[in-house]
């Protein structure tokens, strides 16, 4: 299903709105995710319908336990949907095997986590390079330089995570997530472990990625101030999208 959107484009006649038809890069249809606690089924997602357009930045907000992280994991292919559909760049994740979802993650999705999740044995450079290695195209020095410069990591590349501040670690995690030019960047409360100053730096970087490079971003956050950096804010409650209703 396509979506017709009015977007601002530059034409020979000056700056004027133009109608364009865009296919969503990410789409969920009646998405359910059930967890099992013994014999009891606990629904984390209850029929989520959610679209993200290419180049869009979306913040997902909601109280703890509302299903935000579950949504992120399912649309990122880390968890299997219980019911419904997840389409990423036209690929239906719900119909894929684990191996196929792994392959899709490798090529189309980048993750940034709240706890940075850098590999402690590797330097910053190693943490970024391993993503390139797993991607399969080998080390691309040009792309590496562009990304690390953009994230201001040039001077920290040979440091290990334990030798870096939280802000620096998160910037390395962002670099690792975007080094292979994924179609979608999924961020799970990326500022949750950072102070205000570092949070602003990270959010600004995400905004620049979106505005300058057209990177599609879906971010989960508790922080209402963070939503100011995003095109759209989606609210969740009790496993469903409740757009238009304030989440808190």
């Amino acid at each position, binding site marked *: 299903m396509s979506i017709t959107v009015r977007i601002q484009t530059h034409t020979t006649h000056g700056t004027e709105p133009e109608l364009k038809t865009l296919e969503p890069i990410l789409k969920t249809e009646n998405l359910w995710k059930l967890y099992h606690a013994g014999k009891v089924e606990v629904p984390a997602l209850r029929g989520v319908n959610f679209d993200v357009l290419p180049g869009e930045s979306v913040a997902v907000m909601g109280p703890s336990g509302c299903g935000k992280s579950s949504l992120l994991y399912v649309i990122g292919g880390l968890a299997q949907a219980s019911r419904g559909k997840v389409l990423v760049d036209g690929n239906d994740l719900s119909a894929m095997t684990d191996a196929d979802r792994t392959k899709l993650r490798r090529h189309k999705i980048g993750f940034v986590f709240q706890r940075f999740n850098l590999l402690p044995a590797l330097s910053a450079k190693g943490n970024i390079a*391993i993503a390139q290695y797993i991607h399969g195209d080998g080390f691309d020095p040009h792309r590496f330089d562009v990304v690390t410069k953009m994230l201001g990591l040039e001077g920290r590349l040979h440091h290990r995570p334990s030798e870096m501040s939280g802000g620096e670690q998160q910037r390395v995690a962002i670099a*690792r997530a975007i080094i292979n030019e994924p179609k979608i960047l999924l961020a799970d409360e990326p500022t949750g472990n950072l102070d205000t100053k570092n949070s602003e730096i990270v959010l600004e970087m995400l905004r620049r990625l979106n505005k300058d490079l057209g990177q599609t971003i879906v971010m989960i956050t508790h922080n209402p101030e963070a939503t100011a950096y995003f095109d759209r804010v989606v609210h969740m409650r009790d496993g469903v999208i409740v757009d238009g209703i304030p989440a808190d």
Partner: protein
Amino acid sequence: MMRHFVMRNLFHRPMRTAIGVLAIGFEVMLVIVIVGLTSGMLQETAKRIEGIGADIMVQAPGAQIFFTMSGAPMPAKIAERLRELKYVQAVAPALLQFSMSGGVETIWGIDPATFHAVSNGFVFLEGRDLQGPDDVLIDDWQAKAKHLKVGDTYELLNHKWKVVAIVEHGKAGRIFVPITTLQELVGARDKATLFLVKCTRPDHTDDVIAEVKQLLPTSPVRPVKEFMTLMTSTNIPALETFIHSMIALAVSIGLLVIFLTLYTTVLERTRDIGVLKSLGASKLLIIRSLLSETALLCLLGIGAGVGLSYLFRAVFLKLFPTLSILITPGWIVRAGLIALVGALLGASYPAWLASRKDAVQALSYD
């Protein structure tokens, strides 16, 4: 990149890596040393038998090639019958007695005259030949090991012997006493463990063997020159089983240590495995990285094991100069392969477990 990742992971926990390396090193050393000690002793014994200079050895029916533990079941007078055979130049009976007093010793009871006729005599480094009933000859290695010199008293089999000479090593045994005294001491009067036969010419050996086999059809009769090839663990009953048991024990130690090391590694790296999965790492890649890490750990362990083996041999031979540990390239390679296969087997289950981890659970692991 994979090599770099594996190396970094390996050295991220240096203590654990060091323990793993030492465990594998110990396993490799155990295999090399056990095999080296048994084959070293066998080879050394064989060399000494060949060094006697006899052409044929006749043993009692049912006797084993490694005759250290043999008793004295043959009448010594068989020597007379053997001397009468065609092409036989000399025959020397010998009584061998195993002694555990003050170490593992094999005492050779010989008649000096006949033994010299077969072997062309000892090379005396010091002292004189056996004359009195309580005289003992020892070779230079034994003298060094026991700190003995000519004139000293040497107690063996609860009997006080007088060291009358130190001879060059490499002929038969390390301790020689008069056969008659030994026969009395062990209650084997007029008995012998074996007979050494010297032919008039070495090319008559086969003819003499055929004659002896006619005379003593149930006795093992062997050309002495074949002793080196015959003296292997496969020809010694139970020795092969002993070696296999020791190797199995060593492999079990290595396998268990690697299993535990990798299991704790996988537990500790649960979150890292989740991260690798989020980056799109396949199960195969996760297994490969852990098995590569194990293989690298094992290679370091093999190196340490070889080094430890030589160190052990040096210390061991300093303490027990009469024993021998034969370290061969063939067994170094075999011990290495055994360790590698054992380690990879030990690592395979934790690696498989890691590859099957749920990515979401792994990422939320504390």
